[in-house]
């Protein structure tokens, strides 16, 4: 399942996309790697244990992820680096 978490508002599009089929059997290093606690493990409606954007962050990920996305350009995002199955992408 391709889960798109985030939103589009007047200022732009901010989505973290997780391909949950690739999350299966992954210990979930992305969750620990995120310094802001944006990611969480959930059991989805079909009983699978997968990664997701934590509910409290879904409506403000532009701000939650801001520290890892400085204006001048920064290092590779820790969550993407930690995702070995290549399940995650950021739209911005």
């Amino acid at each position, binding site marked *: 399942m391709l889960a798109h978490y985030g939103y589009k*508002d007047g200022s732009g599009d901010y989505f973290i996309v997780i391909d949950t089929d690739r999350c299966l059997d992954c210990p979930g290093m992305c969750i620990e790697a995120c310094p802001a606690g944006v990611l969480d493990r959930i059991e989805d409606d079909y009983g699978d244990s997968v990664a997701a954007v934590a509910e409290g962050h879904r409506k403000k990920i532009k*701000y939650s992820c801001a520290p890892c996305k*400085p204006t001048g350009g920064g290092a590779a995002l820790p969550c993407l680096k930690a995702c070995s199955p290549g399940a995650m992408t950021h739209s911005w």
Partner: protein
Amino acid sequence: MFTAGIDVGAKAIKVVVLKDGAVAVRRLGLTGFEPRESTLKVFEQALREAGISRKELAFVVATGGGRKEVDFADGEITEVGGAAKGSVFCFPTAKTVIDVGAEEGRGIRCDSAGKVVDFEINEKCAAGAGAFTEAMSRALEMPIEEFGALSLKSTQAIPMNAQCAVFAESEVVSLIHAKTPKADIARAVHDAVASRIVSMVRKVGVEKDVVLIGGVARNVGFIDAMNRSLGFDVIVADDPEYIGALGAALVAHESVSHGRKS
């Protein structure tokens, strides 16, 4: 030698007239539905107060989102350019400028000459600027000044789930029905905007001295929320809404001084 800066904002037009590089006049008027007419009106009021005619103005620089309305301007400067210039003039040690207006919030890093090094903008979303607090003050049926002051009386922090001004208004109404103290609601609203502004500014990096400008800097509740979110007290400019126009006027002054216009 007289120069002027005109800042055509979403909500208000600010005009600053300099005499030999020092502030002589500051005037403000609401932009309303006819920005071109309103700009002329405020501009002419400023000239009258300065006791000069338009011919005596050596150079006029326009800034603000509506700067194209100033068709008689000799030059223009971006909002971030004007903000940096004006802030460093008032506070030579300023390294970070936070400019919060009615519709936009800006985080600016500048050098000691008042030049912009880096910037980030919260735009096109009411939740990231003054429009948010204003909409909530309307929902609570009190003037914005009262709303800001009330937030300082809050005794507890309450969560605010909505991240959109329209949804937040509904949330505020629900909180009122649930008999939540208005002071706590006010604080939650100010904290929400401040948190968004600070997150945005952190993208350019917060380096002291940090100066807060723009119309929203008049809101004592917002200043308090910003200080708590940053973890230290920002320097708040006097007449904060004029700093952009001041920057434009200074650029006008420099243009004449450096012989860019005879």
